C-alpha cells in the first residue's frame, strides 16, 4: 500500500511543517545543480580547448578571472540566503513554537529501547502515571507504577503509534538504554533519543493513513528492525480507538501488540 506513495525523490509529506523542509531541500538541489552544470561547462570547455597539441603552447600569464571572484561572492551570498531565509526559521519553528494548550495537543511519552518503540498515552485524565527504571520488566516495558492513580487509565503500546489527524502531537522522547533516533520520514521529523535526557518534539499530521516509524541511529544488532507502525486516524476514529483502549486493560493490549 505504501510503495505507490514513494517516488525516487523525497517521500510524501503529511506534516504541517514539512513543506518547508522539502522546499529547502529542493532549492538547495536546484542551486547545486546550477553551480555544478555551470562549473562543468567551463571545466569541459577548458579540457577540450586547452588540450596539448602540436603548435599549442601554455601561456605563462595567469588569467585575470574577475568573474571567479564574483561567482564566489554569489555562492556565499546564496548560502547566506539559504541559511537565514530558509533554514533558521524552520528550525526556530520546530524548536521553539510548540503548539499551545488551546490547540488541544495530544501529549505522548515515547520510550525507546533496544529494539522497540514504546508509546505512552496519558488516557482520559490527561496525566501520565509515574514511571521508574526499577519497575521496568518484560511485562512492564516503560516501568509504569500501577499504584499511582494517574496510571490507571494510561495506555502503553509497543511499536504501534496511533495519532489523530489535524491535531498537534507533543511527545517527550526518552531512552532506556542507548541512543536511538526517532524518525517518521513522512512527517519530516527526526530526533535523537538520548538516555538521561527528555527531549520534546511536536508535529501535526495532515493526512490519514498507514506509515512507518524508523530508528535512524545505530543502536545494536537489531537496529535495522527497530521499526514501528504509524496509523493516522481521523479525529473520530482516534477517539473511538483511544476510549476503547484506555478504558480496557492495558497490559493485555501490550501483549496483543507484541
Amino acid at each position, binding site marked *: 500500500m505504501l510503495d505507490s506513495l514513494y517516488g525516487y525523490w523525497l517521500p510524501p509529506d503529511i506534516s504541517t511543517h514539512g513543506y518547508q523542509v522539502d522546499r*529547502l531541500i529542493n532549492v538547495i538541489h536546484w542551486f547545486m545543480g546550477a553551480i555544478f552544470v555551470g562549473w562543468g561547462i567551463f571545466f569541459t570547455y577548458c579540457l577540450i580547448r586547452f588540450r596539448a597539441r602540436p603548435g599549442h603552447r601554455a601561456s605563462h600569464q595567469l588569467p585575470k578571472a574577475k568573474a571567479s571572484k564574483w561567482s564566489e561572492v554569489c555562492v556565499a551570498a546564496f548560502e547566506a540566503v539559504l541559511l537565514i531565509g530558509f533554514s533558521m526559521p524552520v528550525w526556530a519553528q520546530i524548536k521553539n513554537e510548540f503548539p499551545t494548550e488551546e490547540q488541544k495537543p495530544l501529549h505522548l511519552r515515547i520510550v525507546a529501547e533496544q529494539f522497540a518503540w514504546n508509546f505512552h498515552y496519558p488516557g482520559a485524565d490527561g496525566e501520565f502515571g509515574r514511571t521508574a527504571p526499577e519497575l521496568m520488566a518484560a511485562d512492564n516495558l516503560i516501568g509504569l507504577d500501577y499504584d499511582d492513580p494517574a496510571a490507571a487509565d494510561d495506555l502503553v503500546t509497543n511499536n504501534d503509534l496511533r495519532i489523530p489527524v489535524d491535531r498537534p502531537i507533543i511527545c517527550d522522547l526518552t531512552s532506556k538504554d542507548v541512543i536511538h533516533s526517532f524518525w517518521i520520514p513522512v512527517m519530516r521529523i527526526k530526533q535523537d533519543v538520548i538516555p*538521561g535526557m527528555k527531549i520534546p518534539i511536536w508535529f501535526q499530521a495532515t493526512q490519514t493513513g498507514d506509515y512507518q516509524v524508523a530508528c535512524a541511529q545505530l543502536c545494536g544488532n537489531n537496529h*535495522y528492525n527497530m521499526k514501528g507502525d504509524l496509523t493516522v486516524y481521523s479525529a473520530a476514529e482516534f477517539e473511538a480507538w483511544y476510549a476503547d483502549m484506555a478504558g480496557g486493560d492495558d497490559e493485555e493490549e501490550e501483549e496483543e501488540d507484541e
Partner: protein
Amino acid sequence: MSGEHDHELGFWRKYVFSIDHKVIGIQYTITALLFLLFGFTLMMVMRFQLAYPGTEIPFLAKIFGEGNMPGGLMLPEFYNQLGAMHGTIMVFLGVVPLAVGGFGNYVMPLQIGAPDMAFPRLNMASYWVYFLGGVIMLGSFFLPSGAAQSGWTSYPPLSNINPGQTAWLFGMVFLITSSLLGSVNFIVTIIQLRAEGLTFFRLPFFVWAQLVTAFLLLLAFPPLEAAGVLQLMDRLAGTSFFMPSGLVVSNQVLDIAGEGNPLLWQHLFWFLAHPEVYVLILPAMGIVAEILANNTRKPLWGYRSLVYATIFLGFMSFIVWAHHMFMTGMGTTMSAFFQTTTMIISVPSVIILTAMVISLWGASIRYTVPMLFAIAFLPMFAIGGLTGLPLGLTASDIHLHDTYYVIGHFHFVVAPGTLMALFGGIYYWFPKVTGRLMNNMLGKLHFWGTLIFMNVVFMPMFLQGMHSVSRRLYDQTVYEHGKDVQDLTIASSWGAWCLGIAQIPFIINFFASIFAGKKVGSNPWDATTLEWAAPSPPPHGNFETEPVVYRGPYEYSPPEDPTGFSPQNKAPA
C-alpha cells in the same frame, strides 16, 4: 629500493627498521594500500548482504567462521562489525596513513630539499606504532568478543555495553600516538629544514597541505585520545562518564554511578573527526595541485589564495564539529552558530576548487594517467562538497541526517575524491621511487574503470538517502521505503564488485612496473619542484648537492626559458 650507498647497514636496518624517510614512506604506502584493500573487501562482503539480504553463501562461512556467518548467512552483529571496521580501517589505517604517512613522508622532505625528516628515529617509531595499532584492529576480529560493532563513531552508551570496543580503543590509542609523533615531525621538518631560498611562499602547495594537515592532527587528535581514555575507564574501571543514571538494559537496571553524559563523547569525537575530514582531503588537494600544474604546463592560478584558503580551512575546521550533532536536541542558538560556521567553511573550499579549475585556462593539458586522476578529482570533489550543503543546514538535515545521503556525500569526498587523487599521486611519483614509469594502457584502463564504477557505487546512495533509507542498516527491506529502492542497492553493490575488478589492472601494473616498467631519468614529467632534482630513486640523504632555490614552485612555460620549464633549483642565467 633506496640506499645503494649505505652498504654498511644490514637488511633489517635497511628495509625493516629503517630510519630513512623514503623507506618509511614506502612502508606506509604498502601497508596503507593493503589496509585499503582489506577495508574495501569488507565492504564488498557487506554489499552482498545489502543487495540480497538473507542469502547464504556457504563458502563465506569457511572464511569468516560459523560463528559470524552460520551456513554463510551474515549475522547482524557481524554486519555491524564489518561496518564499524570498514570505517575505522579506511579512515585511520588506509587513507590518512597513505596520504600523510606515505606521500607526506616520501615526497615532502624531497620537495623542501631536506636530507630526511627532522627526527628520523621518531619517524620510524610512528610507523611501527601505526603498524601495531593496525595489528590490534585486525586482531580484534579474532578475539572471542569480535571486532568493534558500534560504528566508527562509537557512540556511547552503545559502545560502552557492546562487545569488541575495548580492542578498538586500544588500537586507537596506538594510532593516535603514531599520528601525534608524525605530525610533530612533519611540522618541525617543514619549518626548520627547507632548502636555502625556499621561502614559505615558494613551497609547493603539497607541502602547505601537509603542514596544515599536520597541525590539524596535532591539535585535534588529543581530545579523541581523552575521550578514548574516558571510554576505557567506563569499560574497564566501571565509571560512567558517558552513562546517565537509570540505564536499563534488557530490563535490568545497570549497576553504575550514572550522571554521565552521552553527548560528551560526541563533542570530543567530532572535535577530532571534523578536522579529520580535512586531514583526508587536504593532502589529496596537494597532490592534485602538483599534478595539475605539471600537466597544464603553467603556474597554478591563485597560489597565494590557495594557501590562505587552506590555512583558513584549517582554523575553521575546529569550530564546525557540532554540525554532526544537529539532531541531538540542539537549540536555536547553538545550531545557528554551527550552521553559520559550516556555511563559512564552504567558502575556502569553493576558492580552492575555483583556483584549480581556472588553472586550466590557457593551459596545454597533457592527458597523462596521473593527470586523468587529478582532473577527475575536481568534479568528484565538487559533488562531495556541494552535497554537504543540505547536511550543514539544520532544516534539510532533519530529513537527510543519518541516511545514505550522508554516506554518498562523504564518500564522494573521500573515495572518488581523495582515493582518485591518491591513485594519481602513485602514478605521478612512481618513477621517482622506482626509476620506472607505470604502464600507460593499464593505467588508463584502471582510471576509466575506477571513475565509472565509483559513480555507480555512490550515486544511487543520494537517491536512497532522499528516499529515507537509514545508514548502517543490515537489511533495508524491512522498511517499505527500503523495499522501494532495493534495486538501487543492488546496482550499487554490483558497482562495488566491478570496482573491485577494476583494481586488478592497477595491482598488475604496480608490481609489474617495479621490475619491467620503462626506465626513465630523474625528471620524466619535466617538473619544476625539488623532488625531481634528486636522482630516481633518491639515495640515502636524497640530494647529491644541497639544492638552492631561486624561484616559485610552478614556473612552467616561462617566456624567457626555451626548455619550457624552470626548476626551482635552476640558477638564473
